[in-house]
């Protein structure tokens, strides 16, 4: 490679490295803000602000869903399946994919009593796909 081209190549690579490092530093600094939601362990540990509008995400704990008889109100527990549980209350339509053992994303406010009052519940689906017959066999996909 002739020296002029080599110098141009070095200049371009420096430019790319500079922009890359800058972006990496900015993203690292903003790390907390880029996360879409607080996981249950962060909420249990008191890292989530009380009373502010935040999102909480986790798995709906098996056996925790209780529907009210006469209203759309529902209570359930979101868990990281490693011991951290957050109780959630919500009144409204649940997404079709909402079910026990599935991931959900709740938008709302954390009360001082540790109960999360959700205004919106979204379902989070995972990266596993399978036909219904197989799905019935693996009740809990790994």
């Amino acid at each position: 490679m002739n020296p002029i081209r080599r110098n141009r190549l070095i200049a371009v690579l420096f430019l790319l490295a500079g922009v890359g490092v800058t972006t990496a530093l900015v993203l690292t600094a903003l790390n907390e803000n880029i996360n879409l939601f607080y996981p249950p362990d962060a909420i249990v540990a008191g890292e989530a602000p009380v009373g502010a509008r935040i999102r909480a995400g986790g798995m709906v704990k098996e056996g925790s869903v209780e529907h009210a008889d006469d209203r759309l109100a529902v209570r359930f527990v979101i868990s990281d399946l490693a011991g951290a549980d957050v109780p959630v209350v919500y009144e409204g339509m649940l997404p079709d994919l909402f079910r026990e053992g599935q991931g959900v994303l709740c938008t709302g406010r954390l009360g001082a009593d540790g109960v999360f009052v959700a205004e919106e519940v979204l379902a989070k689906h995972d990266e596993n796909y399978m036909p219904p017959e197989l799905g019935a066999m693996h009740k809990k996909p790994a």
Partner: protein
Amino acid sequence: MASLKEWWHRLGSPRTFYAIAQRAGPWFTGLGVAAIVVALTWGLAFAPPDYQQGNSFRIMYLHVPTAILAQSVYMMLGAAGLVLLVWRMKLADMVIVAAAPFGMSMTALALVTGAIWGKPTWGAWWVWDARTTSMLVQLFLYFGLIALRQAIPREETAGRACAILAVVGTVNIPIIKYSVDWWLTLHQPSTFTLTAAPSMPPEMYLPLLVSVLGFYALFAGLVFARTSNVILDRERSTAWVRALVREQTS
């Protein structure tokens, strides 16, 4: 090494590239369209429904290939930008002009199909998580590239400015790719990785594979065709293009 260098210089000549593109382009386009038709029919009508999402997962046969292409096209633009900046190869600039609108369309399609998928599964058209937001940034990079090109009247300056933007913009590609691993997002992580078996059975991923290959072939075919047009336009005063036009119009 000498022959590789010679090949590189020959390929960089618009006239040689035009000849290759004219011969190979239609094959790639035809193959791509055929593969996409087969894959979509297979995926939309014959693949089994998902045990959780039912039929709505089928949009992945459009969503996944367009999202992959959105990033692959940009990587190619970045590589072409590097070639233009270091080797000053005119052809690289022509390829950038020819490929950018395709990449932009793929990015827009990936975002739209993602929204259509998001509504029935997540319960929302749009969520500002790291994956969707970085993909939106990607769309704006394509807008910027196309707008920058048209904003600078002098061909050579415009080409170099676009090349710099193309190279710098590739920084966003690993962010899109790893956004679902680095941050907590609503978008699920990748089903396909190089290290583990796909968490999807073959009757579901084979149509997806055909669809992805079809989109790549379509991209190759369209870039050959569009670059040919750019070559004819830019080289219109050269002897070979004049001779070609005379030959085809007589």
